[in-house]
C-alpha cells in the first residue's frame, strides 16, 4: 500500500460552508494506474489536491509511503513532494523563460541528489521517453500545447517519484496527443511500477486504467 486516505473531510467556507468531501476512505497499491471520475463539482479535484499534499486544510488522515503527513510544515511537505510526487496538470505550467530541458531539470536541481551532468542526462532520458528530445533546447513558450504537456510529464518524472498525479492531464489535448499521454502513463505503471492517480473526464482514458473510482457529491460511490 503506497497511499492511504482515511476519513478525509473537507469544507469550503466561501461563500457559505459546504462539505465538499464526506469522510472519503480509500487506498492505492504500488504500481496501480488509478482514475478518479465523476461529474464537475463532485470533489474529485479537491481530493487530488489533498492527496498531492498542497492542500492541508482538511480533516482526516493521509499516509503516503508509510508516512503520516498530517501536521507536517509546508517546507517539509515541499521537500516530500519534490522527492516522491510528480504532477501533470491540465494546463502545462512550464516556466516560459526556460528551455524544455531546463524545465525538466528544475525539480532535480532542487533535489540536488545527482551531479549536474547526471541531472542533464536524466532529463534528456525523460524527454526521449516522451519523444521530445528534439525540442530540448527550445524555449518552453515556443512549444505547442501537446508538446508542452509532454515536457510537463517529463518534468514530473525526472526525480523518479513513487506517485504521479494528474489533474485532467489530457483535458486540453487532441485525440492523438491524449493517446500518447495515456500510453506513457501505462508504461510507467507497468514497467517502472510507479503509481498513477489521475482525475479525468476522458472516458477512454479512464477505461484503459487499472481501477476507476467514481465520485459523486463528495463521496466515493464505486471503486
Amino acid at each position, binding site marked *: 500500500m503506497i497511499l492511504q486516505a482515511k476519513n478525509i473531510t473537507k469544507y469550503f467556507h466561501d461563500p457559505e460552508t459546504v462539505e465538499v468531501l464526506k469522510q472519503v476512505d480509500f487506498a492505492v497499491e504500488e504500481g496501480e494506474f488509478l482514475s478518479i471520475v465523476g461529474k464537475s463539482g463532485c470533489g474529485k*479535484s479537491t481530493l487530488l*489536491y489533498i492527496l*498531492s499534499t*498542497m*492542500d492541508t486544510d482538511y480533516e482526516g488522515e493521509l499516509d503516503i509511503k508509510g508516512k503520516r503527513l498530517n501536521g507536517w510544515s*509546508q*517546507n517539509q511537505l*515541499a*521537500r*516530500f*513532494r*519534490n*522527492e516522491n510526487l510528480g*504532477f501533470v*496538470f491540465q*494546463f502545462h*505550467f*512550464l*516556466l*516560459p*523563460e*526556460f528551455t524544455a530541458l531546463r524545465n525538466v531539470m*528544475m*525539480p532535480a*536541481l*532542487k*533535489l*540536488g541528489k545527482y551531479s*549536474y551532468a547526471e541531472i542533464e542526462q536524466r532529463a534528456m532520458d525523460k524527454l526521449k521517453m516522451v519523444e521530445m528530445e528534439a525540442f530540448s533546447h527550445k524555449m518552453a513558450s515556443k512549444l505547442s500545447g501537446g508538446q508542452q504537456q509532454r515536457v510537463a510529464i517529463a*518534468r514530473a518524472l525526472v526525480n523518479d517519484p513513487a506517485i504521479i498525479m494528474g*489533474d485532467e492531464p489530457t483535458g486540453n489535448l487532441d485525440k492523438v496527443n491524449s493517446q500518447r499521454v495515456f500510453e506513457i502513463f501505462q508504461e510507467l505503471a507497468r514497467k517502472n511500477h510507479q503509481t498513477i492517480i489521475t482525475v479525468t473526464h476522458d472516458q477512454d482514458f479512464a477505461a484503459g486504467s487499472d481501477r476507476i473510482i467514481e465520485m459523486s457529491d463528495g463521496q466515493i460511490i464505486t471503486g
Partner: protein
Amino acid sequence: MKRSLTLEIALTHLLTKRKQTIVAMLGVTFGISMFLVMISFMTGVNDFTKNLAMEEAPDIRIYNPLEIEKNTIIAKAAPDTTGNLYVVHHQRPKNVVPKLRNAIMLAQSLEAMPEVKGVAPQVATQVFFNNGPIRITGSLLGIDVKRQGELFTLARKMDAGQLIDLLGINDGVILGYGLANKMNVSIGDRLSITTSEGSILMLRVVGIFSYGLADFDNARAYATLATVQKVMQRDPSFITDLHIKMYNNAQAKAMAETISKRFGVHAEDWSTANAPLLAGESIRFAMTGIISFTLLLVAGFGIYNIMNMNIINKLKDIAILKATGFESRQIVGIFLWQSAIIGVLGGTIGLLLGYGFCVALSHTPFPGGSVVRIATMPVNFNPQHYIMGFSFGVITTILAGLFPSLKAAKVDPVQIIRG
C-alpha cells in the same frame, strides 16, 4: 547548488524582462547619484566656509568686551540702603580700556598649558586708510609676525609680497586685496592712516593678502605690534587680544571656561563666536539628509511596485515551483535575488554616475562675485559618502523587494493551479 538555482531563475527573470529591470535600476542609480552630488556639494560648501572662517579665526579669543555696569553708581555710593529701588534711565557703558592686563604674562602661562598650541597677541584698532582724497574705514591689526605665521594661515594667503617682509622695514603694512584695489595701491606704495584719536602715520605697503572673504579682504590690514602701538600712542605692553590655537579645537569650549575662571578674563571659543555659521551648517546638513533620504525612498517605492507587479505576473511560475517542491525560502530567494541584483547594479552605476557629476561640478565656475573669491564649486570627495550612499541604496532595494518576496512565498499553489 540550490542557491545558485534560485540565482539562475532570478537572473533569467531579470534578463527576459530587460526593460523593467533597467527602469528599476535607473531608479536606484539616480537616487544614489543625486544623493552623492547633494552630499558632496553640501559638505564641500560647509567645509569651504568653515575653513575660511576657521583657519584664520582663533580657537579661543581673549579680549575685554564692552559692558554695562550692573550696579548703579548710587547703590555703590550708599550700600546700606538695600531694599530701595533705584531707576537710572539710559545708562551709558563704562569706559572699557581695551588693554588686556598683564597680557604678556598671561600669554606665557597659557602657552605652558599642554592643550594649547600657541598664543598670538594682537592690537586691534579702527582706522581710516587715506590715499589722496579717499578715506576708507577698516581695522588695523598689529600682530606678532612670527607667531601669526606659525599659528595662522596668513603667510599662505599672500597674493603679493610675504608676511615676513613686515619685519624688514619700519612701518610696513599688509593690505587686504579689496582694500588695496579700492585705494589703487600696490607693493612699495605709501598710504597714510588716521586713528579715531586723530594721530596720523605713513605706512608702506609690503604685501597684499586675500582670504577670499570680502569681510576680511575689503577692510583689514596687518602691521607689526610696534607700528600699531606707535600709532595709538601706547606702550609696548599694550595688547588688546590674545588669540589661542589649540591642538584639538573640539576642546575649545571647555578650555575657554577654564581660562575665564582661572585668569578672570573674557575668553570666547570659536563655536560661540561662529554660532550663526555652525547653525547654517547643521541646517544644510539636515536638509541634505532629508532630500537624500526622500530620493532613496522614492527609488525604493519604485522597486516595491515593480517587484509586486513582477510577482503578480509570475503567480503561475510560483505555483508550479511550489508544486514541484520548492520551499518558501527558495521562492523568497528568487525574488530577493532580483531586487538585490537591481540594487547592487543600479547602485554601482549610481556611484560612477555620482562621481562623474561631482567631478563635472568641481570644474564648474562658481559665481562668487565680490563676496568670496573661489574659482570653481567646492565639492568634497569623501569615500565615506560613497560607502554610505551605496549601502543605503542596496538596503532600501532589498527591503523594498523583501515584502513582495514574502508575499510570493505565501502564494497558495492550489488556488493558482485550479484557477
